[in-house]
């Protein structure tokens, strides 16, 4: 069997390596379709890679932001079908609304199909609940940047950990109140600031208070407002990798988002099946029924198709942006540990 050679001839780069020479990046690679000539086995790398990732496990950090009472904790519990949010982890159910925005992160390990995931839910009680909510996004922005900072510090160490613990926020669900009118100034301000540092997925909370027509109109208005205000929510247009991505994501951006959701951790019997739902005098709202609400779309989007992408955009784009800015501000130097500063101060 003769080899299949492309018209381009790969130039043979003869290297005489000297110290500090530019590495050998060889010239035009030859295109060979190896499958014509007998099975080699390179496609087994997929399986090899899958095995390794299953062994290491995954981290996922999701933040929920919105005024209290919008059902954030319930929604997260519904998404991950377990008691992973703040309200369920031994915190006082009768908590007072805090006077400032607090950041509360809770981690759990969940396992499914041999895949282990360390899920951290970051709650932001107090957001938007004060009389004066000026700059209430600042503690949140600060928290997000602190996680980038933590990662950066680990990364610049000389002796680095084999696996740097990832506490960076991969996804921020922003809960929009189902007023039916438009976005509130606070919503716009928050999303304007934070969409630059984290992946924001806006959701319309408690969507069972709107009829189908109201829902469609509201969503259209919200989308328009976001566009007019230049707010790039996830999936951001500029990060679409190829045409396939773009088509898929365009559909989500222009039709489905923001997802109008309903959350529940209670099960009811409907048509012989046990379903998650909310019971009202006028009927049972089935959370996972697409004709009732878009929860299933949100779940599939965040968990089943775009989870890895959320992490990659956080790592390759948001984190890199933070890092570049940090190094630039420091004159090209990596950051200093806060502890070191304190140590030095105390030693003076």
């Amino acid at each position, binding site marked *: 069997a003769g080899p299949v050679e492309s018209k381009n001839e790969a130039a043979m780069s003869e290297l005489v390596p000297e110290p500090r020479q530019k590495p050998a990046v060889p010239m035009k690679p*030859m295109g*060979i379709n190896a499958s014509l000539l007998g099975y080699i086995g*390179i496609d087994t790398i997929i399986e090899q890679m899958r095995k390794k990732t299953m062994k290491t496990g995954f981290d996922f950090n999701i933040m929920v932001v919105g005024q209290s009472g919008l059902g954030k904790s319930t929604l997260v519990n519904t998404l991950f079908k377990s008691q992973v949010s703040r309200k369920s982890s031994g915190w006082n159910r009768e908590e007072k609304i805090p006077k400032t925005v607090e950041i509360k992160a809770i981690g*759990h390990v969940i396992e499914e199909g041999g895949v282990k*995931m360390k899920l951290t839910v970051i709650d932001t009680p107090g957001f938007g609940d004060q009389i004066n909510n000026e700059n209430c996004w600042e503690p949140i922005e600060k928290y997000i940047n602190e996680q980038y900072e933590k990662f950066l510090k680990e990364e610049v160490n000389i*002796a680095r950990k084999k696996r740097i613990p990832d506490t960076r926020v991969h996804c921020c669900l922003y809960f929009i109140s189902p007023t039916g009118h438009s976005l509130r100034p606070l919503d716009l301000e928050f999303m304007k600031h934070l969409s630059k540092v984290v992946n924001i997925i806006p959701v319309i909370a408690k969507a069972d208070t709107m009829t189908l027509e109201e829902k469609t109109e509201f969503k259209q208005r919200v989308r328009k407002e976001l566009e007019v205000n230049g707010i790039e929510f996830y999936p951001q247009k500029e990060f679409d990798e190829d045409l396939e991505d773009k088509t898929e994501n365009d559909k989500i951006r222009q039709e489905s988002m923001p997802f109008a959701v309903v959350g529940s951790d209670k099960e009811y019997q409907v048509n012989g099946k046990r379903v998650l739902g909310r019971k009202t005098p006028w009927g049972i709202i089935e959370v996972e029924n697409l004709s009732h609400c878009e929860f299933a779309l949100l779940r599939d989007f965040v*968990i089943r198709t775009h989870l890895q992408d959320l992490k990659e955009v956080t790592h390759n784009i948001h984190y890199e942006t933070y890092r570049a800015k940090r190094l630039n501000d420091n004159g090209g130097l990596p950051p200093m540990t806060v502890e070191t500063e304190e140590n030095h101060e105390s030693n003076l």
Partner: protein
Amino acid sequence: IVFQGEGCRTVPLSGHVGFDSLPDQLVNKSVNHGFCFNILCVGETGLGKSTLMDTLFNTKFEGDPASHSQPGVQLKSNTYDLQESNVNLKLTIVSTVGFGDQINKEDSYKPIVEFIDAQFEAYLQEELKIRRVLHNYHDTRIHACLYFIAPTGHSLKSLDLVTMKKLDSKVNIIPIIAKSDAISKSELTKFKIKITSELVSNGVQIYQFPTDDESVAEINGTMNAHLPFAVIGSTEELKIGNKMMKARQYPWGTVQVENEAHCDFVKLREMLIRVNMEDLREQTHTRHYELYRRCKLEEMGFKDTDPDSKPFSLQETYEAKRNEFLGELQKKEEAMRQMFVQRVKEKEAELKEAEKELHEKFDRLKKLHQDEKKKLEDKKKSLDDEVNAFKQRKTAAELLQSQAQQAGGSQTLKRDKERKK
């Protein structure tokens, strides 16, 4: 900030969530991106490196056989795009050229080490950039080094030991016995044992196929015992039975490449490609590269903690170095400025001296000139006086003469004549 979760507890799920698709999501992204694999073949000329690569990857890669007259060791690198099902692999094969051909082989290992380091360096440079594109970086770091051992049947050559010792902390070494159809079965067993014991006694760390994952622990464990693999390469296909097989034909029989009773080629392919390719890549990145990076940064003067075990940071070291450097620069600048001022002063003094001399000279000359002038004037005056005196005498003489003429003509004439005589 309150974090509850160190020592996170496992929470049960009440239904299917769907994150079990995560490995698939990750793998799909990698597939879209494509994979890189870089193999380095180290071995003497004529040990069949190119043929083995052709055989492993079922293709005829470019290249002519090298000659034995290379003045030094060089590395030849080629990249190929291979595709199998939906996997796109960018395969780079680097081979030594002229290894083992020189009379003095003391430095033979150096170009190889430098090449491997150069790839690490390139990656490190990219990693240290402010604006970097690591996820799109074409990784040229060597993932596996196949070390070709000549089939002498006795033991390792000292060149082999020295080279492998220099490489074992930088790359995953997989030793193989090349052209192993030159050795008989019994000799082979002895040879393998000898090689393994020599490697152990010299502390050479070769790559161990990982046995921590239960799904591959068994096969990897068995294969570890078969190292070094005795291989044969051939791209020629011969009809054996009713199948076409890769083989080498001799008058006394046919050696089948893919027959495990004839050689370990299948084992090598299995281990290198079908089972451990990903692990080789991972070890390169998490072990060999990290070691290089650590050494390089320490060399440049960075450290994580100082002797008093107060945590330093890269920034402090940078700052200290920068200040030191700026200080030195300033000092140098000062010194240069001082020198400049000094020189200017000296030059000025010189010039002043010169000026003074010139003035003096001028004065002297002027005086000389005046003296001369005076002398000349005096002389002129004395000459003028003489001329005047002569004129007077002349007038007086002429007067006398005319008087004498009037008195007595001829007498005076005679007297004149006599006087004139």
